[in-house]
C-alpha cells in the first residue's frame, strides 16, 4: 500500500544547485520491513540524485519484480517509473533507452530478479552497453516468498530455518566485468558514505554501470550462518577505494600522499576521485579487477568500492548509430517517406 507523505517542508532544508531540497526527490512511504537494507539504498539514491542536481523528472526508473523492484515507488516521485515483469527489467529499460536517449535511466533489481530468472537479460544488457545505472539490491534470499535461497546465496550459507545452500553463488560483479560493463562497483547498504558517491559516479557514467549492493534482509537473511547479514558483511568488507564524484573541476583541497589518489575523468566531464585503500589497485584495469576479485573471494572477503571504470565508455546508441534527437520526438516529416517514394517503390516491384 502507498501512503502520502505530508507535503510540509521545513523552510531551512538545504537546497541543491537547482533549488530542490532532498524532499523533492522522495517517493511514497516504503512498505518494506523496518530495517530493510533496500530502504537505505533508496535513501542513498535520493541523496545521490539530489547532490548531482538532476531534475527529478529527467530520470526514468525501471524495475522487475520482488522486494527490490518495489523500491522505485519509494524515491523520485516526479520521475516516471515502470515496475515491469520478473527478471525483465533489462529489456524494458533497453527499449525505453532506445526511445529517448536523453533521459537518465536507473534500473533497480534484486538477486532473484537479476541472477536467477533474469540472468539472461542481465548478461545481454551488459554486453550491449545500455547507458544506465543498474543497481542490484542483493540480499541472497527471496523475501516476498519468505526465505528461499537465491542464486547469489553463497555456498555453505545457512537459511533461517537451518538448510545449507549447496549451490555455487553467482557473482554479478564478476559477470559484468567479463561481459564488458564499463562501470562496476560493489557496496553495502549499511555503508552510505561509500554507496552515495558510487551511485553518483554511475549516474554520471555514459555507458552501462553496475552496482551490486549487498542489502541484508532483516526478515529472512540476517541470522548467524548467513553470509549476507549486517554482521557478516561488516566483518568481511574489504573496500579497495573511497570515491568522491566531482562535477566540474574543483581543486583538490585535502592533502594526499603521492600515489594515494587516482582521478578518472568520465565522458560527461565528471571526475571520479579515488582514494586508494588498497595500494596498487588500479580501477581502470579490467583484467586486474577480475583477478583481484577472484583472489579475495578465495580469502573469504567481500571486495567493495569502485572496482572498474572505463572513462571512454561507449553505449548502445553509439553502436547502432542512432540520431542524436530522441527517437520518440521524430515526427511524420522525418519518419514517413510519403506517397511519391512509395510510387517509385511500386514501379520497382513490377
Amino acid at each position, binding site marked *: *500500500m*502507498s501512503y502520502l507523505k505530508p507535503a510540509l517542508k521545513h523552510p531551512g532544508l538545504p537546497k541543491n544547485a537547482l533549488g530542490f531540497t532532498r524532499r523533492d526527490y522522495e517517493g511514497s512511504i516504503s512498505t518494506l520491513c523496518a530495517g530493510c537494507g533496500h530502504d537505505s539504498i533508496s535513501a542513498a539514491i535520493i541523496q545521490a540524485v539530489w547532490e548531482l542536481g538532476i*531534475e*527529478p*523528472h529527467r530520470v*526514468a526508473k*525501471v524495475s522487475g519484480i520482488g522486494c527490490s523492484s518495489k523500491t*522505485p*515507488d519509494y524515491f523520485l*516521485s*516526479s*520521475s*516516471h*517509473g*515502470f*515496475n*515491469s*515483469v520478473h527478471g*525483465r527489467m*533489462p*529489456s*524494458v529499460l*533497453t*527499449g*525505453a*533507452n*532506445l*526511445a*529517448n536517449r*536523453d*533521459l537518465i535511466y536507473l534500473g533497480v533489481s534484486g538477486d532473484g530478479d537479476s541472477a536467477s530468472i533474469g540472468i*539472461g*537479460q542481465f*548478461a*545481454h544488457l551488459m554486453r*550491449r552497453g545500455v547507458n544506465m545505472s543498474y543497481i542490484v539490491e542483493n540480499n541472497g534470499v527471496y523475501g516476498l516468498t519468505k526465505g528461499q535461497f537465491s542464486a547469489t546465496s553463497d555456498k555453505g550459507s545457512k537459511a533461517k530455518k537451518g538448510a545449507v545452500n549447496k549451490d555455487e553463488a553467482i557473482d554479478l560483479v564478476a559477470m559484468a566485468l567479463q561481459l564488458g560493463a564499463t562501470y562496476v562497483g560493489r557496496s553495502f547498504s549499511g555503508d552510505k558514505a561509500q554507496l552515495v558517491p558510487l551511485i553518483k559516479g554511475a549516474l554520471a557514467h555514459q555507458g552501462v554501470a553496475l552496482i551490486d549492493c549487498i542489502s541484508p534482509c532483516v526478515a529472512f537473511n540476517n541470522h548467524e550462518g548467513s553470509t549476507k547479514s549486517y554482521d557478516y558483511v561488516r566483518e568481511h568488507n574489504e573496500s579497495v577505494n573511497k570515491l568522491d564524484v566531482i562535477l566540474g573541476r574543483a581543486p583538490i583541497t585535502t592533502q594526499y600522499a603521492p600515489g594515494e589518489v587516482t582521478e578518472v575523468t568520465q565522458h560527461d566531464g565528471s571526475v571520479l576521485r579515488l582514494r586508494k585503500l588498497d595500494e596498487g589497485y588500479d580501477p581502470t584495469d579490467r583484467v586486474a579487477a577480475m583477478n583481484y576479485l577472484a583472489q579475495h573471494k578465495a580469502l573469504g572477503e567481500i571486495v567493495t568500492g569502485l572496482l572498474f571504470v572505463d572513462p571512454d565508455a561507449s553505449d*548502445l*546508441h553509439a553502436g*547502432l*548509430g*542512432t*540520431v*542524436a534527437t530522441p*527517437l*520518440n520526438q*521524430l515526427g*511524420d516529416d*522525418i*519518419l*514517413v*517517406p*510519403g*506517397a511519391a*517514394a*512509395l*510510387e517509385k*517503390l*511500386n514501379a520497382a*516491384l*513490377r
Partner: protein
Amino acid sequence: MRQPLSAINDFVVKFANVNGSGSASANGLFARSILRMGIPIAARNIFPSNIQGLPTWYEVRISGEGHMGRRGGVDMMVAMNPQTWDRDVAEIDAGGYLFYDSTKPMPASKFRDDITVIGVPLTELCNAAYTGARERQLFKNIIYLGALSALLSIDPAVIEQLLTEQYKGKEKLAKSNQDAFHLGRNWALTNLPPIGLKLEKSDKVGNRIYIEGNAAAGLGAVYGGATVCAWYPITPSTSLAEGFEKYAKKFRTNADGTKNYAIVQAEDELASIGIVIGAGWNGARAFTATSGPGISLMQEFVGLSYFAEVPAVIFDVQRAGPSTGMPTRTQQSDVLSAAYASHGDTKHLVLFPEDPRECFEFGASAFDIADRFQSTVFVLLDLDIGMNDWLCEPFEWDDSKRMDRGKVMTAEMLDEAREFGRYLDVDGDGVPFRTYPGTHPNKGAFFTRGTSRDRFAKYSESGAVYVDNMERLLRKFETAKQYVPHPVEKKAARTTPYGVIYYGSSSAAMQEALAALQEDGIHLDAMRVRAFPFHDDISRFIAEHDTVFIVEQNRDAQLRTLVMNECNTDPAKLVPVLHFDGTPITARFIREAIGRKAQSVEVVPLRKAAP
C-alpha cells in the same frame, strides 16, 4: 491414353528440386517472365527447414483470370529431384505433363500412361557444355528454363532482359546465363513436339506489383512511423525484420549517416517484446516480428501491455504448430493464442491481412491502433502471405495522413491544469490519457505497474478498484470495434441461406471457390473478417444466415471458437471448413468441402432477421 491437357494461360506448373541446388533463381525467372508477358501468376515455395539437400518445390499457377490462390492439382511437373520422383509423378493431373532429365534411362514402371512425358537430356547437355561441378549444377537449371520457354511459348526476349537486369554490372555472367538458356531452348525447339499448354501475351497484370508479405509489412512499419524494432530470428518471420531494416536504411538514414531508427536483434523473444514495451512506454513506435513459438514466449509481457496499457505491435507470421511443428509450412493456428494471449482476463487487438497490399496497409495502421488503444496489436500474417511473392494491387499512401499518437498529455496540457489520472476514463470510451516519461518537471509522472492500481495509478488491492479498472478495459475494447478495419462483405447473386466467413491468406482461394460454387449452384454470401474485436456486422451476418461456413487453415476451427465466444452465436450454425496440412488452402479444396457440406445441410427457408 487420355487426351493431353490443353490450356492457354491457365495451368499449374510445379518444380520439384533439391534445396540448395540453385533452382530458386531459375524458377523465379520462370515466374517473372510470365508476369512480364502480362499474365497473372501466383507462385508458392514449399520448402524444407534445411539449407541444403532436402526436397523443395516451387508451384507456379498461371491464371489469365487472375486467381491468386492455389488451385490444387498440377498440370506440368518439372521433376528434378529423384528423391521425390514417385510422389511428384503421382501428383500430376490425368492428361498432364511430366518434364524430366532423360540423361539416365528410367524403367517404364516409373511413369504413368495417362500423362505426357517430356524427356530432355539436361545432364548430358550440361556436361557437354560445362566442366565445373557448381557451373554444371547451376546452368542445368537455366537449361531447363530454356527448354520450358520453348514448350510453353515464353518470349525469349523477356528472359534475356530479366537476366540482363539480374546481372547488371556483371555482363559476363549475364551472357553465360543467356547462352545456357538458349542451349536448352534450341534443343527443345529442335527435338520436342509442341504441347497443349501455351502462354500468350496478355494485359491482365496491369499496374499490380509483385512482392512478399513480410517485406510489405516491414515497409508498412516504416510508413507507420516505427522507430524501434527488436526481434529474434525465427522462420517464417525473419524477412519481415530484414525488410524493415532494408527500407529503414533507404528512407531513414540522415546525410551524416545517423539513423532515425534502431534495430536490436535480441537474445530471445522475451527480450524482444520487453524492448518493444519499454520503447512503447517511452513514446516510440516499436514492434517485433515472430512466429508461433515466439508468441508463446511473449505471453507474460503481452498481459503486462494489456493491463499496464502500453502500446506494442507484434507481427506474427504463422507457421504450422504446435511446438516446433512444421516451421516451413503455413497455417492460421495462432488466432486464439494471439486474441487471448496471457494469463488472467485479457483480449487483444488482432488484424488479419489478406495479401501483401494489406500487410503494408495494416503494417502501418497497426501503430495508430496500438497508440490509440495503448495495448498490443497483433498482425497475423502466415507463411503463405509472408514468404511468397504475391501479385497484388500497388501500395497506396495519403500524404495528408498523420500518425495518430492517441491520447497523450503534453506539458502544455498539464500546465493548463487539466486533471491527469493515468487510468481515468475522461471521455467515457475507456481510453485514458498517458504521459511520456520526462514530460513535465512536477506534473504527470506516474508509476506503471502490472499490479492493480486506482485511476490515478496508485497501488491498490481493493476489489472495487480492480473491478472498476477491468470494466474500463472492456469498454476500451468495445470502442476499438469501430476503429479497427471493418469486415468486407460480398453478397451472392441471389438470396441464400448460406454464408461463409474467411480471413487472411485464404482470401484468394476463397474468391475463386465462390465463383466455382456459384457455377455448381451453391450461392454464398461472404464475409472477410479483417480484425478482432469483431465488428457488429459479423453477428448481424451470422444472424442473417441459416448456415455459416468458417474457412480456416487450422485443425481446431480457432476463428469459429472466437466467433462463438464473442458473438454469442449458436455453434450449430457455424460449420467449420478446415485445411491444415501445412500447404496453402486451395480453391478446389474449398469448393469440394463446401459443396459436400452444403448438400448435407438440410436447407430451411431463410428466417427473417431478428429485429
